[in-house]
């Protein structure tokens, strides 16, 4: 386990998303979340996703967020249909995150949402849509909240880790 700490301001916080495929020994460093241009402090970034669906066993989104009780972070995955590099609501398929202390997962295609635990969102091979090519990370919350992100390496062929 690798532990990262600190982040004094949400607005200036950075987030690291690591994508690793153990079999290929690949790792992707996710750029830091940009400063929020909005008064509600929302910050978001998009990470291109290239997955060999044929070789995929499962894909796990793992999020650890220290200030989950008063803030929100979520990861959404889907297909960037218009190719603008941003995963819009209409393009997103699944979302997973922590909202004011409650972990949830939501299927944005059907509107079905359910409680989840913080162990991550595992997407099986059958559930994964080969057209999915974009992951979006969103964080909201007031400034001056401490947070930490832990990255777990799961025993799967493909991991996405957020810092």
């Amino acid at each position, binding site marked *: 386990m690798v532990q990262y700490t600190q982040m004094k301001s949400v607005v200036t916080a950075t987030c690291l998303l690591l994508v690793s495929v153990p079999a290929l020994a690949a790792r992707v460093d996710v750029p830091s979340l940009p400063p929020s241009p909005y*008064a509600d402090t929302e910050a978001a970034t998009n990470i291109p996703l290239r997955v060999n669906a044929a070789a995929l066993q499962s894909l796990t989104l793992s999020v650890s967020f220290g200030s989950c009780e008063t803030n929100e972070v979520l990861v959404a995955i889907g297909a960037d249909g218009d190719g603008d590099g941003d995963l819009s609501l209409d393009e997103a398929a699944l979302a997973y995150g922590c*909202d004011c202390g409650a972990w949830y997962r939501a299927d944005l295609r059907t509107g079905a949402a359910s409680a989840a635990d913080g162990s991550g969102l595992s997407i099986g091979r059958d559930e994964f849509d080969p057209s999915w090519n974009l992951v979006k990370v*969103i964080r909201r919350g007031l400034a001056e909240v401490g947070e930490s992100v832990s990255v777990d390496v799961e025993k799967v062929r493909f991991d996405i880790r957020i810092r």
Partner: protein
Amino acid sequence: MDWHLLGNGVVIFECALILAWFSRIGVKGLRKLPVPVLIAFLSLASGTSIVAQKTNGVNSLPPMPLRSAPVVETVSEDDVSRGWRVESVATNETVSYTMPPGAVHVGNWHVHGARSSFGNNIIDFGSAGTPRPTGWSFPLGTNSAAFSSFWYFVDGRIRPTPKDAAHEICAVGVPMSAVPGKSRLWAMADGDCRVLTWENFFLGGDTNAPVNAQIRLSPNGDFTTSSNEVKTICRRVNPDDWDGDGIPNPDDANPMFCDGDFFGPANVLPEGANTNAYCTVSVVATGPDSLITFAGDGPSNYPDPCFIAKSGVTNEVIILIGKTYQVSSDFPVSFVGASDPATEIVPLRGSVTRVCRPVEITCSGDNPFTVSVFPANLNGSFLWNASNCCSIVASDGVFEFQCLSDCGCGGCNATGSYRYEGYGMSFLGNGCGCNHNQANVASLSFSASPIAILFEPEHAEANGLTVPRRSTFSRLACDVSNVDCGMVTIYDVSGTAGHLKFHLSTVDGMVVSLPYSCQVDGDVAIVLFAEGVSHGMTTNDIRIAAVYESADDVLGEEVALTVMEISTRTRSGHPNRQRKTLGVGEEVMFSWKPRLWDVVSVDDIVVSYDEYAIGTPHFATSLVHTVSHGGASLPFDFSVVEPQELSAVSVSASTNGPSKVAGDFVGFITISVLPSNVSFEAIQVKELGAVATNVFGYFSGMDDILDHGNKGANKWHGIGWHEYEDMVSISQVPPPWDQGGHFTWPITNAWRVTTDMAKHFPHRQKYDQTFELDPDGTVRIRKMGYVIQRNTNDVLTVVQEEE
């Protein structure tokens, strides 16, 4: 930055969105507003708000026996697809967005604010399976779908599911920003309604003009959206009656009664229809969207098409072969083709076109005879109307007259009807000589030339002399056949021959006085000439009768008849022999004087009237009815008009209740259906029920009385001549009255000929009925230019409003 100007701009932008919304849903009148008016409308955004006063204790008000009428809001395709329509938009409403005690704080928006709209943003009003299921649900869409939870977004929208844009409800619709520590979302139950409120947001990055938004959902599918002072009331589109006209969708879909539910013709043939009996014509609305009505000349299984044609779109319209349609439209249309080249498309007048693919029916042979139809594959059958003496029987496609032994003379010309696809086409069958069935029965007949015209009016001749009104020199022929030796006597049975003189044929050249008798030996023709002025000074009032008396003193048959006078007389209301403009469904009598082919005994030479009536079509048209006899014909031209509008003629009022109270009076409005120069006795009128608008004060929330449909609307009323009485009333209005109040039933009317379906008046005129309560208890009803008012001092007045 000038924050004030930016704030105003934001609010004006909201109004612009609302206007755009109006345009999208097809509020045609708004589209037609001139630009300055639209600008003025936008300026309302900065207008002063009025504190909407809410009433208390309204639940104690007894049901009010209100009556009158209602609205037909035509829905658009978008309305139908999403399941609701905008009923009204107010720009000066005051709505409280502050979270009241008992509301549920959904969350502070600094967390839940989501410009990207992602997140677990679900508001649940008690779905099954939740910790506290309430059973509450909100029907949305023109199906059976109902929802207990919604996904919400930061810009004041909710959806049943995140991506279900088709069923989105939007209070703002433009990006809003949450303010850390200030913006919040709250929800609450308000009676049967559920309220979701976005409190204290900013549009975009502007922090100077706070925006609030609220969506109030009613379990009946109605809802209200509010944003600052803009309040929009939306009504559910009834899944069973999309346009709310009281006619179920299946009937609305019936093209005869379509009034906005559909674009383009239905083109649905009845089950089991013979497709060979139908063809199509192509029509295009060359101007704006247009209502196109095909009015056929009789009923059929396939109803007459009527539909709204979208501008520029070619509509293939199915018509029944052989049926004649008068096609009318409210905007220009053009016929651009027909599937059957034999189709006749003939412009008549104005925007009316006659369309028909003719059917030819031909009789061959005398007796028996055959009938052929072209086109031949219509699969119809023949029906024969009873003639004066014969019936027609069919055998293996051959028809034969079968006459009674006492069949009179003149022959039989039975009319037949060729029926297919529920449609009947009349034709005249071959005549038969029935006399061969009569042994030793004399036959007498008269003919006249010129028939029916026996006088010429007063006129000036070339020499300057004025010739008085006089009869022309008309030839009358009396033919006597199938007789043995006997006597023929000719009578003048008019009794008022006046100055008429009768001559025998020019061979005889003698003036005779009637009765005139002559001995005959076998068949004979006696020719008389009449000249002079008829005593009655009326048209064609010469009446001649002939009697044959056989030599063996056995009375023969007598033919009493002569020149026919044909007249018309309107049958309903005030009989009128001159009027040729008729109301829809009105009956007009055609009279002969004297009776044609009248067979009477020699001792009973009675000339009587004979007449028949025809009913006019149930739609506006020009009508020519031709009466033919003896080779001559006399056409009568009629114009048939539909009701155009309503006008209050007089108003009276009364009250029989306790004194010193508010309300409790009845008004009676005598309403004339215009035009007033025809009879509309055949039609019925009803007011179409709608929910009240302009609701204020005392009457707010009194849903029972606000729905006109619950208070006397949607009921048909008969018409006497062209007037009927409308009753308006209000029950006692209990105090307190200090806040006053008012509401208006939007009223349009429909009419029908009794057995038909409803039709709108041509311009869908509004005859709104307004109820008003003053703070001193004065109550008044306004309708059709009249005001009925009762003060609490029992003074009841009726006044006509100034134009």
